């Protein structure tokens, strides 16, 4: 015990000495959860730009979004904040802001012209009382369905565009003795798929009423009910191994030709690309009923209230690096996400991401994800309802609609 304390004390002293010795160095510690191969490549791009600007990137990658975020929050509350930390776009940061733990980015945003660089929907999700508190860094489309192209050819079906075409393709695959549908069975991806069905079946008006206004009467309405029925039907095509299966395992079943279809955001494109597959010949991506638009999700960087001048300088450099158009675009290409800054060169993008980018930059064709609008407590409550409905022998459609409507007022 004593020896451990001594060790800790010496280490702390050594760290202090090291810190004061290199006071000239602008150290920026960044907490994030980007640990997969594509994501790490993206981080490298950002770190490189920061280094070029004269900073020293201190990488603190923590596997799993919730783990990374709770570490960051503990550090901020404990008075030892990182220079920047990664959160999901949306309401997650609000309580930190109300407790005066975040740096106000309004001045930087004005100087760097964020207003004209970024899509309004993304920037607005980081605004509280007219002040900007979050810097959007990555964008994704969430309501995509992914198909194995050779299987589509084998059963003689074109890329589905409507729900009827989807079910027809699933039936044909089933009849051919193939596994039709392998979605991920983790609750958050079940929630993602449910939202995709609500937007695609119930339509944009109902979706926005539920997500933006938390309108319980829209949840109890006929259109939402129709979406619930389609989701229930899709669930019955899912293979037996679905419950608990991660999205990479589920995607892999489509990549390797064991299944026809899976569901997931634009990040699935990275998995296909990493397996050496080409969009259009090996796989297809589609939003079903695309007139209703795409569900946008993404990540933002938050900058804790700086503790000293050195930290302010580090944050200034990080902000400069993250909002730089060529850096942002190179990051998005490496990461497999949508470039979020206007004026980005989209010629290097894969067809699926290019198509997603088109939706992304058109306000009529893009709407926010539930995580952008709901507090984490509500996200959790509706997620519990959705995962119980997704389980065979779980909630009935009527019970589920009630549970979802009640979840909208969770706190």
């Amino acid at each position, binding site marked *: 015990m004593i020896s451990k304390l001594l060790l800790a004390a010496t280490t702390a002293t050594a760290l202090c000495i090291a810190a004061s010795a290199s006071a000239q160095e602008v150290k920026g510690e960044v907490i994030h959860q980007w640990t997969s191969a594509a994501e790490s490549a993206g981080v490298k791009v950002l770190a490189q730009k920061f280094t070029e600007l004269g900073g020293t990137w201190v990488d603190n990658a923590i596997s799993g979004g919730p783990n990374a975020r709770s570490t960051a929050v503990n550090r901020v509350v404990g008075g030892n904040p990182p220079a920047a930390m990664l959160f999901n776009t949306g309401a997650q940061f609000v309580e930190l802001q109300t407790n005066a733990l975040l740096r106000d980015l309004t001045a930087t945003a004005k100087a760097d012209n964020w207003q004209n660089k970024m899509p309004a929907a993304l920037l607005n999700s980081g605004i509280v009382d007219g002040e900007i508190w979050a810097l959007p860094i990555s964008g994704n489309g969430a309501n995509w369905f992914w198909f194995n192209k050779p299987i589509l050819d084998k059963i003689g079906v074109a890329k589905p565009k409507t729900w009827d075409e989807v079910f027809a393709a699933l039936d044909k695959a089933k009849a051919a003795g193939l596994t039709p549908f392998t979605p991920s069975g*983790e609750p958050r991806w079940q929630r993602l798929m449910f939202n995709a069905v609500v937007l695609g079946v119930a339509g944009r008006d109902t979706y926005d009423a539920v997500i933006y206004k938390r309108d319980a009467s829209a949840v109890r309405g006929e259109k939402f009910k129709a979406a619930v029925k389609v989701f229930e039907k899709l669930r019955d095509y899912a293979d037996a191994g679905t*419950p608990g299966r991660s999205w990479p395992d589920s995607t892999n079943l489509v990549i390797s030709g064991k299944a026809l279809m899976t569901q997931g955001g634009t990040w699935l494109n990275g998995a296909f690309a990493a397996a050496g597959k080409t969009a259009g010949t090996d796989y297809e991506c589609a939003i079903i009923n695309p007139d209703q638009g795409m569900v946008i999700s993404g990540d933002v960087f938050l900058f804790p209230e700086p503790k000293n001048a050195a930290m302010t300088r580090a944050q200034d450099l990080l902000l400069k690096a993250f909002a730089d158009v060529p850096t942002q675009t190179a990051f998005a290409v490496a990461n497999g996400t949508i470039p979020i800054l206007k004026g980005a060169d989209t010629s290097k993008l894969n067809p699926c991401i290019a198509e997603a980018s088109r939706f992304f930059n058109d306000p009529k064709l893009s709407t926010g994800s539930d995580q952008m609008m709901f507090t984490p407590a509500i996200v*959790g409550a509706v997620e519990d309802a959705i995962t119980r409905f997704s389980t065979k022998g779980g909630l009935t459609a009527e019970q589920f609609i009630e549970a979802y409507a009640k979840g909208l007022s969770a706190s």
Partner: protein
Amino acid sequence: MFVRSPSSSRLQATLTLVPVAFVVLSVYVGGVLWAAGISFTRSSMLPNYRFAGLTQYINLFANARWQVSLGNMVLFASIFIPVTLLIGYSMAAMINRGVRGENALRTIYLYPFAMSFIVTGLVWRWLLDPNFGIADVARKLGFENASFDWIVNADMAIFTIIIAAVWHSAGLVMVVLLAGLRGVDDDLWKAIRIEGIPAWKAHLYIIVPSIGTSIATALVLMSLTVVRLFDVVVAMTGGGPGIATDVPAKFIIDHMFERQQVGLASAAATTLLLLVLAVAVPLLILKNHRKGGAR
């Protein structure tokens, strides 16, 4: 001969214990009291002190997921504890008869416990996978209709977790009980043999009562496994299918961090603590009572 005066040795003991007592009181007891206090507030992501009365507890017990979690814990305890005890005792009794290769067997039996529950969970998850696991092996061996889908079946999934947990803990219980069995006087065994008492009767009525302390220790250890149950669930089922295998510890962690509901999570943690005390205190009293009686 150097004799220390009783007062100086008592002083030394007190001095040694002061830091420990301080840590226990401030960190553990203080932390528990603080969490209990937070459970009566509206705290969400960060703790605050706006009094909310019993709101969090009312929400907690109205929450379907918490009800399922508690039910799962009771079901888990009522099967896991007796089955592990039975298997652990049987292995201990077998080894105690002086089989050859005792050390090797003991190592093999204890080995699962040396593995992290996460590893145990992942191994069992793949073994029980309906498409790729044991069921697939059986199909490839010619049993074409073989299927074993407990892990994805909401009604049966909790039993797969019990299987993994029993496999994990039986070795530890064996070692604890074996230590107890080794303490049984040889004369007692001789007497049993002379009297010609059947083995099962001897174990049930004579040996088991005489190793009560070891059994109480094993029970305490297993009870801790029950309330701490978290990692094996996360690794095997993630609480699913649906919320079918959710457990209180997972409920608390999810709400404390990802869902930013510190008040609700603290209410759940406080409830869990009260349940633990309700089970552990009588066991500890029993254990101390036995210890006092044996001397």
